[in-house]
């Protein structure tokens, strides 16, 4: 029996490691091909090692522009969505009010709608009102689909929040805004950062909704889609590799920071074990639990 158990338990772990390899495989291909030296314009057969394209990473002006547009868009969308989403999360967790069900639905349904439908619906409306599609319509869309995810992440953070800390602050004479600034905000800050990173990543990665509402504005994913038609330049792999590295760094940093925050907050007696957003994309938050 023990032997069977041993194999079974290792079996699960071996399977898990194989899955991890599988998830990393395309990334390995992307990174490897950022060092490829293609003969023609197509970068999908291995021709030889070169670091040339890392040196010339910013040689394609269309690509740089697309990346800049994406970064601007993601930054703007993140700031606005994080503020709006955090406010909603605060309301949901801290207040009893009529219409909670409706509010919950309004938050859940956009997350569970296919992107193609969201994109198409927004375009229908923009066309109806004869709104020129472009950066602004992209921004509107990106804020819209990020809000729900921000709510989910921040909300899960707030649920585990010990409100006695705030009460203590007020007992010590702090007014509401001082309490919010000095106690509440620092404690939910890791949640806010996770939420903001998530919103940023979602915005940076979005293709489908953007494709409907971009007009002639080109974001990084839209550039890739266009370039994929005629051979993706090696620089795209370089950019993707950099993005991957940044993601890993960002995730590691959040993990460490949250650990620190949890240590600081460990004064609370009934500490819950981290956050558990049930949603995939709330990855940074989950990774910290």
């Amino acid at each position, binding site marked *: 029996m023990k032997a069977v158990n041993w194999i079974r338990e290792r079996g699960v772990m071996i399977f898990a490691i194989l899955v991890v390899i599988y998830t990393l495989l395309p990334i390995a291909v992307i990174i490897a091909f950022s060092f490829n030296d293609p003969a023609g314009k197509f970068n*999908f057969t291995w021709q030889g090692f070169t670091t040339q394209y890392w040196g010339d990473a910013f040689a394609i002006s269309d690509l740089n522009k697309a990346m800049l547009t994406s970064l601007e868009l993601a930054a703007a969308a993140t700031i606005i969505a994080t503020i709006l989403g955090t406010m909603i999360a605060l309301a949901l967790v801290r207040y009893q009010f009529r219409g909670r069900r409706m509010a919950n639905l309004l938050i859940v349904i956009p997350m569970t709608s296919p992107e193609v439908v969201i994109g198409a619906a927004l375009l229908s409306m923009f066309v109806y009102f004869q709104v020129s599609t472009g950066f602004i319509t992209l921004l509107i869309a990106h804020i819209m689909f990020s809000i729900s995810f921000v709510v989910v992440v921040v909300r899960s953070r707030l649920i585990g929040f010990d409100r006695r800390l705030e009460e203590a602050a007020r007992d010590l004479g702090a007014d509401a805004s001082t309490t919010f600034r000095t106690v509440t905000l620092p404690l939910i800050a890791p949640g806010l950062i996770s939420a903001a990173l998530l919103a940023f990543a979602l915005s940076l990665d979005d293709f489908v909704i953007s494709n409907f509402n971009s007009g002639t504005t080109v974001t990084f994913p839209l550039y890739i889609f266009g370039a994929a038609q005629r051979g993706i330049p090696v620089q795209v792999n370089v950019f993707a590799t950099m993005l991957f590295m940044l993601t890993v760094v960002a995730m590691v940093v959040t993990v460490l920071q949250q650990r620190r925050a949890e240590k600081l907050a460990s004064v609370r007696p009934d500490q819950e074990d981290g956050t558990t957003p049930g949603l995939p994309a709330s990855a940074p938050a989950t990774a910290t639990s």
Partner: protein
Amino acid sequence: MKPPVRIVVALLGLVASALLAAGCSDLGAGGLDGPTETAEAAPGPGNGELTISNWPSYIDRNTVSDFEAKTGISVDYIEDVNDNNEFFSKLQPTLQNRDPAGRSIFVVTDWMANKMHNLGYLQKFDQKSVAPAMANLVPSLQHPAFDPNREFSLPWQSGMTGLVVNTAKAPDIKSINDIFDPQYKGKITVLSEMRDTVPLIMKADGINPEDATADDWLNAIDKLKEAVDSGQIIGVTGNSYINDMARGDVVAAIGWSGDAIQLQADDPDIQFVMPEQGCILWSDNMVIPVGAPNPAAAYEWMNYVYQPENQAQIANYNYYFSPVKGVKPYLKKINPEAAKSPLIFPTESFTKNCSTQPDPPRLDTAEIEKAFQSLVTGG
């Protein structure tokens, strides 16, 4: 769980009000209100910025910077036209507002230039400003049916739609009919540009595409549909077929002449094969949209690329027909091989069976386009 009656009522209310609002006002019909014939683009000093939308792989690395150095105009050259329809759909919401999204030049195929013109989205050229370019336009392209006096369009490049073949893997593909050969099942693609693909199929069936009826178009589409459904034709694509060819997954395609040459860097066996039935001839045209920010710079660009020596540089890169007179001697200097290519300077015997890209019968266009689109999305 409380009965969500209130939610349902609220939603119904919203639906009803939106429907009412929609019923009262019609969606803006396409095209601009008011006169569609628009004022000629006024000439002005050539400076400032110029934004151009063109197809990818259509220009060499130096032309843009040479032009900038010579004129002081700073150019934003964007390769964002991958498909006439797709480009147009993305742009239409802004074009309707007389806003061409900052662009002063688009490059679109004949029929799309015509369509944009009919919807009132294009400016007429100021003929005086564009005269130097017009003077160098080859005679065969001076009077196309859709724009007999070149009032709003000027060719960027012309080209042929025919067969792009991996001659090592499919040596015996010579005719359009050969793409239906079962031995190449699953290794054939055709273009999603309807006016390229369907006329070639009609030619293969002995129909002259220039006077084909709606039924001829629909029959050809049916024939393609069968081949797509059976898996004989594995893709109905825009530009992206060249990926599959370079990878070796596709051995023959209905494709564009310049692509074959550009693919040879990846696979020297890839050749443009003139189909026995002839090819389809088309031009991609520079047009100036209504509301273009800097038409003067647009004219400078047109005049610049219509200088034979500048044009030679472009032709040497993309291997399409050059619409400019007197390019050959200059091309000979930089690339004697290219100057001999029938793809850049077609001889009459080479293109003798070719037809100009036709439009489907006007009244049935929508139905034919819809039938064709069902090839792309299967069914």
